[in-house]
């Protein structure tokens, strides 16, 4: 140990060579003896009931080994989404699956199966489904009901299933709205604080704007292919998940077996962005087929199938009425959101979006009303910044327009409204107080970014036409929750002198799966080359670990590993005191030894201490686990007991407030007014994300998140044909992701590096806050270049820009499908 901290230093993740040589195995890279192949029969209709299925011709084919339908799939306790269905709620929903000796045979068998579908009414547009007399997505309702208020006296157990209800607005509600304006009818959920009327009365400028945030498919590079086999009563499942430890219970539920009988293998995940948060329900298909066929089954999911079953972001139509004082301070904010949760759900993006709005714009008074609508479109799930990104989309055009009207600088209006320190956010609690965050340094991030981006210099050039080109600059604060608490850690120092850290985090490329071990190595002063990280396989005895979603992993698992390493350190000190005299506090660690302070010669090497721990047994080698750790951790500790000195602990470090991170994005664009084409000239992101754990990875997370936002601003959208309810954006070129040519050749990032005071390592999460920063900053820059009223929906495509410029007014109706 050279005395340098590992946390904060760059390093080569130990899996990188496997990745770059092609040896890293993702789910579809595994093979098993006698492996069959699966093909799916997908619903051709957006809403239907399966009246009958005739599989006789398919089963008669040579090579067809098994067919499963929804009848072979266990019902879920809360009526949740099954991997196969008898009542498809969206076109492309899997109805049955065939396993055969090869894929062509399986596909041919699917063609020979006769399914009698009864077409049912459907809707693809959340607003349409609120009109009187229109069809609902489900037979029992078109909107998700508000959840019941929390009942502290309720018996423990799974939460009550979410309910649906029918909600129709009146013709008068629709007639009251101006063209392009979101009508405001009956809401389902609401919260408010402050005096809204007084806030609007005090406003110098009040704006009322509607914005439509699109849906986009997640489309990780690796689709949700999976391979399953059974051995000695246990299911072995190779799948692609963001969270290894957390996925096991879900798979057990979907397949209908106890979690102990599930072994998940996922050492490498080819991206997820939320869509593989706790795995994918479709992974139950090869598991159940394999059981029925009594052979391994590979299910390869095509890109087109991924578009159907691979999840998408909730789209939102938002109307924000916002009052601004002369200095730009928001006096009142009245937000109405219609969210599209797709065929399943309910998704809570509108809640996290409203919370984020209240946090980054710090209004004096605020009301939120929302309707969470079901449509017969692909299922939504959290997508990288679920809610906060949409909130940036709804709010940023309003701020940009207000700043122009008030003659304020765009950075200044965000600065004056930005949160500071332990800022309040969200709805009022029963006691009248509001929740607060652990820390925010957004004002510093705005100041630093403004200087580094040379904002004033660039601003002076914006709006100046040069030939057919005109430039503009934009800035946005992207927020997101950035850390959970209370998870576990297991690590062992073994007689070989090495530290083995068990990691239940998914390996989706954020490197947090490995980074968290560096916290433990720092506390134990262990050289990095003597640290082994064990991950990616629930058969390897992993601790209870957070979901790798919601930017929570770095925060949650650095805390857990801090606790585990402190436990190991304490045990080293206790063993040394026992053997060498004195009290544990007389001992310190360093140089792979535990030694007496002031008398470094008196001590034990880690290898010796590991031997002693095994001899002592009990808590020292994991035979006794702390009472407060999760049962999964206890089982893993028991399995690893006796291998060495074990650090095993739950994160109980106190935290005052909820953890949020912030990224400020600065964008400069160049718009060609003769073609409407937008080019991104430059982008700078500044992260208020706490202590930096892995600088290169942080740079990648900031830019990756920003680019997802930029793609939402410029090119990506899910398109469903409203007449037939079928997805039109089936391939990458229909909903173009950013390519390497769509962004500047260099994209700098900055991290403030200010530690969060409420977590021992100081690190907060980073994956999500940059998304809204990229989305908002680029759209603001376009507005700065060509006008604040040119667009009111995203993506801002060339035709939207050009049509508005040609006619000198906005030509698209934001509420109408833009194909």
């Amino acid at each position: 140990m050279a005395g340098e901290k590992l946390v904060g230093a760059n390093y080569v993740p130990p899996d990188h060579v496997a990745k770059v040589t092609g040896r890293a195995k993702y789910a579809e890279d595994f093979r098993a003896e006698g492996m069959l192949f699966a093909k799916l029969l997908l619903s051709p209709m957006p809403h239907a009931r399966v009246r009958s299925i005739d599989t006789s011709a398919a089963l008669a084919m040579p090579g067809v080994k098994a067919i499963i339908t929804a009848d072979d799939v266990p019902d879920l306790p809360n009526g949740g989404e099954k991997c196969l269905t008898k009542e498809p709620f969206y076109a492309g929903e899997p109805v049955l699956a065939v396993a055969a000796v090869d894929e062509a045979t399986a596909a041919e068998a699917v063609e020979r199966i006769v399914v009698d579908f009864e077409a049912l009414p459907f809707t693809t547009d959340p607003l349409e489904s609120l009109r009187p007399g229109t069809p609902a997505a489900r037979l029992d309702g078109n909107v998700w009901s508000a959840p019941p208020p929390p009942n502290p006296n309720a018996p423990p157990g799974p939460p009550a299933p979410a309910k649906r209800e029918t909600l129709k607005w009146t013709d008068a509600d629709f007639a009251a709205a101006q063209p392009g304006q979101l009508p405001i009818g009956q809401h389902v959920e609401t919260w408010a604080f402050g005096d809204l009327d007084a806030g609007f009365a005090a406003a110098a400028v009040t704006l009322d704007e509607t914005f439509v945030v699109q849906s986009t498919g997640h489309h990780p590079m690796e689709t949700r292919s999976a391979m399953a086999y059974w051995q000695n009563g246990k299911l072995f499942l190779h799948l692609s998940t963001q969270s290894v430890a957390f996925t096991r219970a879900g798979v057990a539920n979907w397949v209908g077996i106890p979690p102990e009988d599930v072994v998940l293998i996922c050492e490498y995940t080819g991206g997820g962005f939320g869509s593989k948060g706790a795995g994918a329900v479709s992974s139950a298909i090869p598991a159940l087929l394999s059981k029925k066929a009594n052979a391994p089954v590979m299910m390869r999911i095509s890109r087109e199938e991924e578009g159907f079953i691979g999840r998408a972001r909730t789209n939102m139509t938002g109307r924000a009425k916002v009052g601004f004082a002369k200095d730009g301070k928001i006096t009142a904010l009245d937000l109405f959101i219609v969210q599209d949760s797709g065929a399943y759900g309910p998704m809570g993006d509108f809640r996290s979006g409203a919370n984020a709005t209240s946090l980054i714009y710090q209004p004096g008074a605020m009301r939120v009303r929302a309707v969470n609508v079901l449509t017969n479109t692909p299922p939504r799930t959290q997508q990288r910044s679920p809610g906060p990104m949409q909130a940036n989309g709804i709010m940023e055009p309003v701020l940009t327009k207000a700043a122009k009207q008030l003659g304020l600088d765009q950075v200044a209006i965000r600065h004056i409204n930005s949160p500071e320190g332990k800022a309040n956010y969200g709805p009022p609690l029963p006691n009248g107080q509001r929740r607060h965050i652990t820390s925010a340094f957004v004002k510093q991030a705005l100041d630093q970014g403004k200087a580094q981006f040379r904002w004033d210099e660039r601003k002076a050039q914006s709006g100046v036409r040069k030939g057919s080109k005109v430039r503009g600059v934009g800035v946005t604060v992207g927020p997101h929750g950035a850390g959970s608490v209370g998870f576990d850690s297991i690590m062992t120092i073994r007689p070989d002198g090495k530290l083995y850290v068990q990691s239940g985090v998914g390996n989706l490329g954020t490197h947090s799966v490995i980074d968290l071990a560096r916290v433990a190595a720092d506390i134990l002063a262990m050289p990095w080359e003597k640290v082994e990280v064990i991950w990616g396989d629930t058969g390897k005895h992993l601790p209870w670990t957070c979901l790798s979603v919601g930017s929570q992993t770095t925060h949650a698992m650095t805390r857990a590993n801090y606790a585990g390493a402190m436990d190991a350190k304490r045990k080293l000190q206790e063993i040394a005191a026992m053997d060498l005299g004195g009290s544990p506090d007389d001992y310190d660690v360093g140089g792979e030894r535990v030694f007496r302070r002031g008398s470094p010669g008196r001590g034990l090497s880690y290898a010796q201490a590991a031997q002693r721990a095994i001899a002592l047994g009990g808590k020292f080698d994991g035979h006794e686990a702390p009472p407060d750790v999760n049962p999964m951790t206890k089982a893993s500790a028991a399995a690893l007991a006796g291998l060495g000195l074990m650090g095993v602990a739950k994160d109980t470090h106190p935290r005052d407030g909820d953890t949020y991170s912030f990224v400020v994005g600065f964008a400069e664009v160049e718009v060609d007014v003769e073609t409407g084409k937008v080019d991104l000239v430059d982008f700078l992101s500044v992260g208020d994300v706490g202590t930096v754990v892995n600088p290169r990875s942080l740079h990648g997370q900031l830019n990756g998140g920003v680019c997802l936002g930029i793609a939402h601003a410029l090119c990506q959208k899910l398109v469903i044909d409203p007449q037939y309810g079928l997805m039109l954006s089936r391939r990458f070129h229909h909903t173009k992701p950013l390519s390497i040519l769509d962004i500047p050749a260099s994209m700098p990032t900055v991290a403030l590096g200010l530690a969060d005071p409420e977590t021992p390592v100081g690190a907060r999460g980073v994956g999500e806050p940059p998304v809204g920063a990229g989305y908002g900053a680029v759209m603001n820059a376009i507005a700065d270049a060509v006008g604040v009223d040119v667009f009111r929906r995203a993506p801002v495509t060339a035709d939207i820009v050009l049509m508005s410029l040609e006619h000198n007014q906005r030509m698209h109706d934001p509420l109408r499908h833009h194909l």
Partner: protein
Amino acid sequence: MDPVNRRTFIKGVIAAGAAASSAAYLFRGPGSLLGQTSAPGSVERLITLMVNGQARRVDVMKQETLAMTLRYKLGLTGTKLGCDRAECGACTVLIDDVPHYSCSVLTHTVRTRAVTTIEGLASASGALHPVQRGVVEEQGFQCAFCMPGFVMAAVGFLKVNPNPTREQLAHGVSGNLCRCQDYDKILTSLMKGAEYLRGGTA
């Protein structure tokens, strides 16, 4: 050079008045014993491929793509399938040193040509190719599912332009998509690889 890619293949099929069935692209089972329902004899099936410098005898269906042969017949799973329709580049391999989307190349068309996959870049002793070294050292890529394709595209491009600017190298790998959108760091790592390849500070 006139590779039969998917586009020319489909054109040919359409010109012949036949329907391009999606089943034609589906994979047949591993080994010649399983599921080979089409009549043998019309096309020679047992062929020799030159892959990563080795002659490999392999049983190939006439409609089989190179990506499927590599992944399911030769065990070379480093070549990834991200879209199977020539959109994403994850399956990029070198054919006679030129990057190709192996999902859209019929295996039968590369019989006399040298195929290089990600597994063939490192030396026999395990020493990484300079571009691989650049990627490792700069921690390019995140989930890395697109990584083999990007690296092969970069290696192919650098054979033509060994000393590119960042912008030129970006063009060189612009046929590859990364959904983590780690493009900035990818480019930095590939530029480092290019430097190593030129024998810079290796």
